[in-house]
Every structure is written in structure tokens, then in C-alpha cells.
């Protein structure tokens, strides 16, 4: 092989870059998110599979309907009715942002801009 020093150095850089996830984690997959589920309520406004993948679309639609179109009628969630609201609706059951929202968002590197406007509820407030 000609210029073997240069070629081997280049290939080593290539392999190190390409195997980044293999050595960065050190074989440790870390903890899966632990979502704290509400104890008092059993049913959400949609089923769990939909909420898992598409809750952001629901929230976005609620925002448009409530704020821009003034449609603030309540939404059924099993036996109870829920306000179209993040703070007064969702967080009525899912009380703790850190133990519910943040769990998956941090795991998947998602930074929703809900909290650009909304205050994070504080228990001491």
C-alpha cells in the first residue's frame, strides 16, 4: 500500500466518526423515560397510542380553536369534561411537568415551545 501512514490515519478517523454512537454510550443505553400516570383518572381525551404520537397536534389544534376561533367548549375524557387548555385541562390530571412531559421530551431531545409563554406550574407558588 502506498502512503500507508496517511491512508490508515484517514481510515481511522473515518471509523471513529462513523462508530460514534457505539463508543459514545459505552454500551450503556441509559434509562427509559418513567412517566408518572395520574392516579385519580383513568381515561384521557384520546386513546394512549394517539396521545403518545400526536398530543402536540391536539394541543396545537386546541390552541387555534380556543384562542383564535373562540371555541372553548369542553372536551369529553371518559366520564369527565376537560377544558381545552394545557394548564387547566391536561395538567389537571398530569400535574407534574417534570415527571410527565419532561420525561419523554428529554429522552428524545424535544424542546417544545409551550413554556415560552406558559409558566411552569410551581407547587410552592
Amino acid at each position, binding site marked *: *500500500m*502506498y*502512503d*500507508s501512514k496517511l*491512508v490508515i490515519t*484517514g*481510515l481511522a478517523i*473515518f*471509523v471513529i466518526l*462513523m*462508530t*460514534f*454512537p*457505539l463508543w*459514545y*454510550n459505552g*454500551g*450503556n*443505553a*441509559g434509562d*427509559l*423515560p418513567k412517566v408518572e400516570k395520574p392516579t385519580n383518572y383513568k381515561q384521557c381525551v384520546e386513546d394512549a*397510542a394517539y396521545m*403518545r*404520537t*400526536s398530543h*402536540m*397536534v391536539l*394541543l*396545537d389544534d386546541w390552541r387555534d380553536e380556543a384562542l383564535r376561533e373562540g371555541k372553548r367548549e369542553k372536551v369529553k375524557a371518559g366520564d369527565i369534561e376537560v377544558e381545552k387548555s394545557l394548564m387547566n385541562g391536561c395538567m389537571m390530571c398530569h400535574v407534574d411537568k417534570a415527571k410527565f412531559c419532561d420525561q*419523554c421530551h428529554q*429522552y*428524545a*431531545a*424535544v*424542546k417544545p*415551545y409551550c413554556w415560552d409563554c406558559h409558566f411552569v406550574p410551581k407547587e410552592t407558588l
Partner: protein
Amino acid sequence: MKFSFLAVIALVALAFLGANLGSGMQYLFGVIIPYVAFFLFIGGFIYRVTQWAKSPVPFSIPTTSGQGKSLPWINHAKLDNPSTIGGVIGRMALEVFAFRSLFKNTKAEIHDGPKLTYESSKWLWIAGLTFHYCFLIIVIRHMRLFTNPMPFFIEPLEYLDGFLQVTVPALYITDLLFVGAVTFLFVRRLVNPQVRYISFAADYFPLFLILAIATTGILMRYVIRVDIVGIKELTMNLATFSFAAPPANLGSTFFIHLFLICALMAYFPFSKLMHLGGVFLSPTRNMPNDSRMVRHINPWNDPNIKPHSYAGYEDEFREFMAGAGLPLEKELPPEEPEEPAEAEETAAEGEAAQETPAE
């Protein structure tokens, strides 16, 4: 082109079947095939590069796209015609990071007259550059699924890419530019007759494959929306060699996306896409134009065969050449008939002295 398109459709169909034929097939498509494809990618890449590195470069063949180093009062185009290693690194960096040779692309046209005109054509350059940088950002962005906790650069990258804050989940700027650039690169092959004439399956297939990967990815983010936590569970298992079964309900689209990427990785080392490694091993780019300062030795040369200069050649055959009436640079020594033996001796001595190679 038809076959390339059908090949990608067949890959999609295969992955769709794999995703829906039970957990065993999901294990094959979600765990085994990705490892095989990754191994082929790394192994094939190293194989191709070492094969190239084993090929001798017989001549000094750098592209000379500017004034070479000459007399001190002639301006030397240091980047277009580098004569030093530093210049080569500069030219190579511009080539790798800015695609400078595409930037010099021109379009030739014949007008009435007839008149041949050349005009600068930057579309290929801008689309190629956009495509490659978007691909890089998208790959780095995907590292959020392969690392836990995430390295520092993921979050700012996500923020900048989703800067427009339109649609939920936030639209990535790179997604838009990427699809636009790939579409341009494809349409260019259809619209331009000259380029279409030299386009084959090896050109269309990667374009279709990459477009299909982008489409499934975009579908999963904006339209179908998949369980990202489940997907990260699988990808983290892949990154940590846990060989665990893929979580349930990942959806067919995810398996299609993953399988197409595996196809791309496995195909990569054996295709034109190897220009990723090849650009560094191009003798026309990585050699300095210093042939007037340094002698390039052809590695093919048999070390037992010594250089034979013209002076040496003439010394060997002078008498025969003179006999055939050929012009000589150095005439035969004048004959001295009275002392023939001595004259022969001096001629032989001269020959022996000149047989030493000129180099």
C-alpha cells in the same frame, strides 16, 4: 431509470412485508439487517480505500487549473496549481468543504453565427452543496436517537434547524432544502439531454433511494407521526449491542425507513457514492505540481532496469548509427590508421565512462 425506480419500490415492499410478518421478521429487519448493513458499510469502505491505496500512481498528474510555479515575477496560482503540500491541503479543503471544482462549472452553448459561448453555471454547485450539507446535518441530528444522554451539539442544532417554528412538530429547514436539492439533482438528469444521455441506473438508483429515505422520514415526523420513544429504545439497543427484540407498534413506515437506510449503507461502498472516500484519493487533486523540482518515481519501475539516457544510447550504437548515416550528437573519434590498437582502447574507455546512468 425505470429499473432503479422499481428496485426502490421493491425494497420498500420488502420492508413493508418484513414489518408486518410477525416479531421474527421484525427482529430480522430491526436488528440483524442493520448490523449486517453497518458492517458492510465500514468493511466495504475500508476495502475500497485500501484497494485504491494499493494502486500505483505512475505519473505526476495533478490537475493544473492555474498558473504553475514559475519565475518569481510570474504570479503563481497557489490554490489552483499548488506546488507544495500546504497548497494541496488548501486546494483539497476547498474541494471537500466547498466543492470548488463544481463551482467552476460552465455551460457551453452554440448560438447563431455560429458562435460558441461559455457561461458560468452555478445550479449544480448550489444544489450539490445544499444536498450534502443538509445530509450531514440530518445525520448529526439523528444522533439524538443513538445517544443517551445527548452530546452538547444536538440541542442547538435542533433549535437552529427548527428555527422557523412553523407546524407541529416544528418543520426542519434542512428537510425542505434536502428534498428540494435531491429533486433538482434528479430533474437535472431528465431535462438536460447531455446529462440524460450519460445517466444510468447507478446514477438514478441512489437518488431514488435517498429520496425514498427522506420521504419516509418526513412522513414519520409530520404526517403519520410515530412513537419516538419506542424508536429510540430500538436505536439505543442497536448502539449498545443489546440484541433485544424491537418494541411493539413501531409501524411499517419506520421499518421501511430503516431498511432503506440499510440498503444505502450496504450499497455505498460498491457504488459511485464512494466519492466520499475517493475525493481524498484522487491523484489529480492530492498531488502537488512539483514535477520540475522533484522526480516522480513510477512505482511500477523494475529497479533492475536502469535509466538509459540518449547519450548512453548513442555511445552504445555510435558505430552502427554512423554506418547507417544517422546524425550523431558526438561524432566518431577520428580514425588513426597508423596505431589502430590504441585508438580502439581509448574508444572503449570512453564508452565505459559514459555507461554510468545520467541520473
